[in-house]
Structure formats: structure tokens, C-alpha cells
């Protein structure tokens, strides 16, 4: 998708940002915690949008989206610690996905899995800084869950990207 006009890109960025915020809001109503007894486990639907942004807009715009989303989430949610978690998770996730894309080694599935895994690692890092080292106990379980959520969001991303004509 190399020929998207500048105006379209700008508009698209705005739409994607709104979509990310909406998805992360809706996600709160899906009680993944019932199936997986780990605090902070979630589907990570916002990553779908990040993947889309990486595909259509490129690395840097995607980063801007992640940062904007963290900022706005913090403003809407009023949760300072949560904002730090989001930020760390989002940036780590973006880093890994950008690298995965540059390597030309993975498909959307590998990229999403890595994105989900690194998102969790970023969040655990933030949690260690705020709550102390014991939190690392949850990391292995979160990582295993990210295999599933990553595959799921990867599938959704693939479905959406292949169907949307810009």
C-alpha cells in the first residue's frame, strides 16, 4: 500500500487512534481473568490497530499512535500507574513489532505474537518499578497467554487489512 495520499494518511491516523481507545475500553468488559487467573491479563485488542498502523502508515506514525493512545487513556481513565503500564507495554510492543517487520522474517502472526509478548514484558517492567520484584512471578504465565492473544489479534489484523481498501 505505497500510494496512500497524505490526506488519507492523516485521516486514517485519526480514525485509528479513536479505534484504539474504543477497543481498549471495550476490552475491559471481556473478563479474560475468569479463564486465566493472572492479574492484568487481557486480549490486547489495541495491538490490532498498531499492526494496521505499521502496515499502512509505517513505523514512526505507529509509534505516535501508541504514545497518543497512552496519553489519552491516562487522561480519560485518570489512572496514573495504569498509564505507566500502558506506556511501557505499548513502547516495548511497538519496538518488537517494528524490528520484526524490518527483519522480513515473520508474517502478521509472528509479529503479533511478539508484540503481545513484549507488551506484557513492558508492563511487568513497569510493575516491578512500582510494585516490586515479586511481580515477575506472573511473567511466564502472561507470556504463554500472549501466544494465544497474539495469534488471535494477528488473525483479526490479517482479516481487516486484507479487506480494507484505502
Amino acid at each position: 500500500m505505497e500510494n496512500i495520499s497524505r490526506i488519507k494518511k492523516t485521516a486514517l491516523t485519526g480514525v485509528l487512534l479513536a479505534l484504539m481507545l474504543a477497543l481498549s475500553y471495550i476490552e475491559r468488559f471481556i473478563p479474560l481473568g475468569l479463564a486465566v487467573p493472572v492479574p492484568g491479563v487481557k486480549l490486547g485488542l489495541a495491538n490490532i490497530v498498531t499492526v494496521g498502523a505499521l502496515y499502512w502508515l509505517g513505523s514512526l506514525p505507529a509509534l505516535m499512535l501508541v504514545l497518543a493512545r497512552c496519553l489519552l487513556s491516562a487522561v480519560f481513565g485518570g489512572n496514573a500507574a495504569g498509564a505507566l503500564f500502558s506506556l511501557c507495554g505499548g513502547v516495548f510492543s511497538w519496538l518488537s513489532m517494528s524490528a520484526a517487520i524490518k527483519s522480513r522474517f515473520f508474517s502478521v502472526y509472528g509479529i503479533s505474537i511478539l508484540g503481545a509478548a513484549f507488551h506484557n514484558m513492558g508492563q511487568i517492567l513497569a510493575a516491578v518499578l512500582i510494585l516490586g520484584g515479586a511481580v515477575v512471578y506472573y511473567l511466564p504465565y502472561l507470556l504463554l497467554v500472549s501466544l494465544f492473544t497474539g495469534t488471535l489479534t494477528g488473525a483479526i489484523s490479517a482479516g481487516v487489512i486484507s479487506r480494507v481498501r484505502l
Partner: protein
Amino acid sequence: MRAFPLKFKKSDIFAALFVILLAAAVFLPSALKKDGASAVVMLNGKEIGRLELARDAEMTVRDEYTAHIVVRDGKVYVESSDCPGGDCVRSGGISRQGQSIVCLPNRMTVYIEGSDLDAVIG
């Protein structure tokens, strides 16, 4: 701006493997830690608490006297106590197998139980 394949690739398996290995790598140290050194708190000859030295922790013993036991930076010490004499507080921090802090008035002992390593003589 780069596009990436939207269909599953065999190399994606490596991503999954990487994550699994990572999970194992983080899991292992804490699974092995069960043999790590810990501080055992005894009151009247009975074990009433066990604190792992690897993790910062606190414990308050309330018997005839109240003692505040703290684990920090791999050492355990009695931070405060209202027992007469206060020997336990003045004992300072212990961290090695065989070392102990004793409070006679409170009939309380804190000693270090071994890790899987050999004993040190002397």
C-alpha cells in the same frame, strides 16, 4: 513504509518458540529458589515463620514482647523490639547459614537455614 505477509509463515513458529523459551527462562530461577537460604523465626522452640532472604519482607512477632523482623538486601535483622536489653536489635544483620539472632526474654530465635551449598567450617 513496509508491508508484511498476511498469511501464516513457517518462520512464525520461531516467534512462538522464542516466547516459550523466554517464559521458561524467567520461570526457572524462581522454581529453583526453593532451596535458597531462608530465615526461620522460632518462638518457644516452634517455628512460627519463615522468610526467604532473597525477597525483602517484614514480620512482626507479638508475644511477651513485640519484635519487628525485617529482611532487606539478603540480610535479616531485628529492626526493633521492646524487650529488656534489646540484644536482638543490637545483633545486627545475619545472612549466613548457622548464624542466628536470639532474644531470650521473648524466647525468640531467628536463624538462617541452609541453601543447597556446603557448610563453611570456622
